[in-house]
């Protein structure tokens, strides 16, 4: 088992180095200093920034130095926000992202599994057809449209019409769980679900609706495929009820591909949904990255990309391992 994990890790290290190489090269195509300072910087400014990021060194030196610093998350100081390190800003951006991506992922997975079970149970019948038509229709609308209309009808309009029930903020974010300083020293734990509902529930709903179409179709296809297997026919022959076959025999086996698919969406937890964060103004990872890009904040971009790629690779390894664990047919050797 551990040998398997180790081998996967070792295999993915060159992949990770490759990504870093590509990304670092891509980020240097346009001179980062010029991008930040405009077309005509003074030589002193130039030199200071180049020294800061070691941009005056040969590429290979920069590459090795960057790789060595990755495990410590030491990516230097932000250019735009002087005095803050990239690591600080990175860590600060994680909780807002998690507070809406975790519920989105869980809710989307659960609702889609239930809907696809219903669809597979009634397969070929009107219920199934309606659900699948809805899924295709839902898939055909642009992500941005869902966000814009969701924000308008969920938050903007109720507020404009002064309804008594306008639970969602149009945009913004406030911490809803954690420690805060109390007057007179010390800190206390606080937890406020209403704040979460105000700022995070609407993005969660939009995210779930977007994910539903794709997930439901995939899960239904998996389940229908599983229904044609021999063991299902055996169970039918020995007289098990249809319901029992669906929920006991089939669901267990169908869960293997479903778990894999849910795992592949895990990087989304950290990267956050850039678009949702941009529109709802949530200061998560995605929005921080986009802000850094717009500010031409080179150290931030480089650091974020390295972290995102690492998270992605770790999830891929984790997916392989979990897949091997749940499916005994996969050989570990």
């Amino acid at each position, binding site marked *: 088992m551990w040998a398997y994990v180790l081998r996967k890790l070792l295999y*993915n290290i*060159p*992949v*990770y180095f*490759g*990504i870093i190489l*590509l*990304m670092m090269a*891509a*980020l240097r*195509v*346009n001179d980062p200093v010029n*991008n930040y300072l405009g077309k005509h910087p003074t030589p002193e400014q130039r030199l200071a920034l180049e020294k800061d990021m070691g941009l005056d060194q040969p590429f290979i030196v920069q590459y090795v130095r960057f790789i060595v610093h990755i495990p410590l998350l030491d990516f230097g100081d932000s250019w735009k926000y002087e005095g803050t390190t990239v690591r600080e800003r990175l860590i600060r951006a994680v909780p807002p992202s998690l507070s809406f991506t975790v519920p989105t992922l869980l809710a989307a997975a659960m609702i889609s599994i239930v809907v696809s079970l219903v669809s597979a149970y009634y397969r070929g019948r009107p219920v199934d057809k309606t659900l699948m038509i809805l899924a*295709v*229709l839902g*898939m*055909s*609308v*642009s*992500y*941005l*449209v869902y966000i*814009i*209309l969701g924000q*308008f009808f969920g938050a*903007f309009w109720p507020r404009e019409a002064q309804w008594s029930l306008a639970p969602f903020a149009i945009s913004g974010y406030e911490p809803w769980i954690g420690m805060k300083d109390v007057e007179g020293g010390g800190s206390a734990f606080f937890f406020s679900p209403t704040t979460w509902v105000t700022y995070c529930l609407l993005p969660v709903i939009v995210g779930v609706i977007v994910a539903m179409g794709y997930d439901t*179709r*995939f899960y239904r*296809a*998996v389940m229908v*495929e599983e229904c044609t297997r021999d063991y299902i026919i055996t169970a039918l022959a020995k007289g098990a009820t249809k319901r029992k076959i669906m929920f006991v025999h089939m669901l267990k086996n169908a869960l293997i*591909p479903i778990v894999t698919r849910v795992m592949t969406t895990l*990087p989304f937890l950290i*990267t956050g949904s*850039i*678009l949702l964060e*941009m*529109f709802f103004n949530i200061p998560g990872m*995605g929005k921080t*990255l*986009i802000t850094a*890009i717009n500010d*031409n904040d080179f150290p931030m*971009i480089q650091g*974020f*990309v390295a972290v*995102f*790629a690492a998270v*992605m*690779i770790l999830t*891929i390894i984790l997916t392989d391992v979990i897949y091997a664990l749940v499916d005994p047919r996969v050989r570990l050797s």
Partner: protein
Amino acid sequence: MMKRLAKSRGLRRFMRSKIAMAALAVIGLYFAVAILVGVFRVITPADATVRVLPSRYPGFLQRPTLDKRFEVAQWFIDRVETKLNFAERRKTDVRPLLDELALVERTVAQLSPERLRQLIDEAWEVSDEAGEGFDLRDDLLDDLDDATRELASHRDPDIDTATLRPVEELRAFIQGKRTEVQASSGEIDSVLTRLEAVVLRIQPLPTGWAGMKYTFRTFLGSDYGGSSISINAFYSIKVAFQVGIVTATICVFIGTVLGAAAAFFGGWVDHTVMWLVSTMSSIPYLVLLAVLVYMFRGTYFDTTSNPFLSLVPLYTAFCLTFWVGTCRVIRGEVLKIKELEYVQAATSIGFGRFYILLRHVVPNATHLMFINFSLLVIGAIKSEVILTFLGLGVKGQPSWGRMIANGQQEVINFAFWEIGSATVLMFGLVLVFNIVSDALQDAFDPKHVT
């Protein structure tokens, strides 16, 4: 390759699916529009920016509100009057100035300046009348508001009810005011109709062929700058096809070549390709896009207004990410085909490896190329919207992405026409491509799980 595909059982199964045929017909319609725009230049990018209406004029045959109608009428009168005054002060000929006011086919009437002046004065008179009507209505609405608030305070325990008018009286009062508001709205409506008739004499609607063109330009309303939404939306069909077909062709080509080579030759070729595939698929999609935005910032492609070259960053982003899926699928299929008897037979006869690959292996994976092509077109059209939002997308010509991104600001002003038309047209195209790719998959690759 094509001949063999045409005779295949899968194609017959595909043709039998009625809904897929209907979807293909719809794609044909869209494609015809794209050809008309792209090849015959029925609509040029310049048409899309020209002013055809006052800003944010409602479309979809929706009638504008009374306030909007008043505003629009005043806008029409005002701009003609400004030009007349200007010409009078400078003592120049007014005609060229008036021609500048033309809303494409809708020109200012060919009348003498004196006659126009007369009409404008008449229009201002009617407009004043309408303004009085609006004042009256606003007073009524204020009264109504006060009464409603007073009625609500009856339920408030902190307020002494004795100071308030009794509930029954208030109810009757509100009822009376409501009918008055309705009557005054009717009055305003009739005044505005007169005002619009005068405006139509100053700047009449075109008739005949020009009139039809003008109706086409205006039936979906206008955006903030007053340019036609229908022109923008229909031009975008061409952009969508351009983006979709170019990306899908390049990606399917790269994916097939690399995937087939990796599976067929194995060894270091396979290792290199698979390393490339896992590297590319380990970069989160949106992060790659963000890096590309940074990479292309300020370069020639970012600043050019050439409609083809300005799309290069977009193509780069798509081609870097989308070939991976195709490559995986083709590699899997070729690995399977490689072991089949007919390939072994061909090898035993002594055919070369390249000959076998091109003649016997790749043709048997053609169906996968078609399915992937269709899926990639969908992906490209949908991603264009996101990329445009991030600033890497289409520039110098209209696209659905730009319309939707603009629509965000318009929606707050309750103007849904821009985002609505872009969404409806895009929804139609993506939907039919979805249906076609489903049908293709069912027909050629029925065992596949999506």
